[in-house]
């Protein structure tokens, strides 16, 4: 009976460690996606206000798109992440972010400020700016 209790406790500890590691990984992915969402927002706003050129904006958005795709691949490389509802939701938001960035690259190419502004408004995973 005592052995069974110890085994149960050990199993619970292992489960807790596994869960906290998964939580930390999810938090890390979320932070990275938020950073990339915020980057897209700042680049887009700088282009709309005329502070940065179309050349820089396209280059920077392409690099951001590449980083989003890299992060999505990392997230999807662990099935248990996508089994977790929080991971699945994050994955969907990241996919949406990726699509918005791709569309914005097109908008910048065709110098369509109105479309870019609309896309910025629908940008997912953008954290609140801290004071």
């Amino acid at each position: 009976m005592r052995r069974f209790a110890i085994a149960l406790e050990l199993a619970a500890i292992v489960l807790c460690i596994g869960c906290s590691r998964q939580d930390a990984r999810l938090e890390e992915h979320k932070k990275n996606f938020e950073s990339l969402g915020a980057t897209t927002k700042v680049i887009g706003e700088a282009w709309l206000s005329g502070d940065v050129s179309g050349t820089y904006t396209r280059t920077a958005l392409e690099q951001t798109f590449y980083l989003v795709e890299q992060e999505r691949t990392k997230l999807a490389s662990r099935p248990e992440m996508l089994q977790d509802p929080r991971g699945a939701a994050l994955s969907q938001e990241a996919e949406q972010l990726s699509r918005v960035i791709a569309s914005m690259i097109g908008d910048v190419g065709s110098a369509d400020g109105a479309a870019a502004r609309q896309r910025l408004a629908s940008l997912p995973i953008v954290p609140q700016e801290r004071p």
Partner: protein
Amino acid sequence: MSAIVDLVLGVVTSIGGFVEVGSISTSAQAGSEFGFQLLWAVAAATVMLAMLAEMSGRLAAVGKQSVAGAVRERFGIHFQAVPLVAELIIDVLLLTAEIGGVAIAVKLLTGIAFQWWLLPIGVVVWLVLWVSGFAVVEYGLGLLGLVTLAFIVAAWKLGPDVSDLAKGLVPTMADHDMTRYAFLAVSILGATVSPYLVNFYSSGTIEEKMKEQELWVNRVTSYAGISFGGVVAMGVLVTSAMVLEPRSILVNSYEQATLMFVPTFGRWAVALFAFSLGIGCLGAALEITLNAGYVLAQVFGWEWGANKPRRDEARFTTAFTFILVLALAIGLIGFDPLKLTMICVALTVVIMPLIVLPFLVLMNDSRYVKGHTSGPIGNGFLAALTILAGLLALVVVPLEILGG
């Protein structure tokens, strides 16, 4: 009068030549992730570099020996083989990262992928070294590098709270992600105290034919110039902390780092960042290439010197050309400049004890520095740095894996 001109030029070019790919990357990442909390790491690394530079300049002015040459003579080739190979590996990787930094700067301005610029930039580096002397590499690029003062202007205009800045100069524990914090602190040290700088500084002192009577020029140049240079690196950290951190932007690419200039410089932001990064990295690329030639020539006893006709020093020229070609080959295989930079700065910390320990012996050997041996402060500093470097060398790889 000539000493005064040398002094002013030395201080000004030390400021202009301080910031390069390593300091921009580490300071920008530190600011965006931990605000002002890592300012102390930049300050501490700057003091360490200033003291090492002063000592290597003293060794060269008094003993007429570069650090590599003196280590070769004092300890023999069997001892030097390990630090020599380690330094050359770091030099090649760092050179690839610096050329990558210039290529990214051109990409920011033109929109053309950075890989296309690697080879042309390599050719420019080689041509500059082929046709010009030491003064162009040291003073020319150092003066152009004054564009990096834009980081101080940006930080100033953003109006940081002075008491917050002062708090950042005191080492504290991070309130989140301690492993990452420790990794960035160690990386800042690795980015600032590069082994190539120590030998380059001593070789430069010999190139400039500094005399024993001019040791005060060396002292002022190293302490004042490098300290002001450190302020530029702090400018990068402060600007990043004030612009990127509140927006939750982490620096994972130079395109993201560029955004730190937008609130201050508006339309000039991209151009100013690109010139700061490009000129800083080009200057460092020239210095690293030249230093690789210096080290090999000094260890093997070949003719060397950036001011001599190239036909008189074929092996020196071949050595730096070979290192440059090797760095370009690595670059052309494909790499991420920012990731390579972070690997380089971590590796620099690993080899630091191998560089500092022989230095401690040399600076106490009157055959090399005559009556100018290090006092208790200098010796205490070098001993502490050797112990610290040994400890950091042990922890930097685990930190790179966990927090890099």
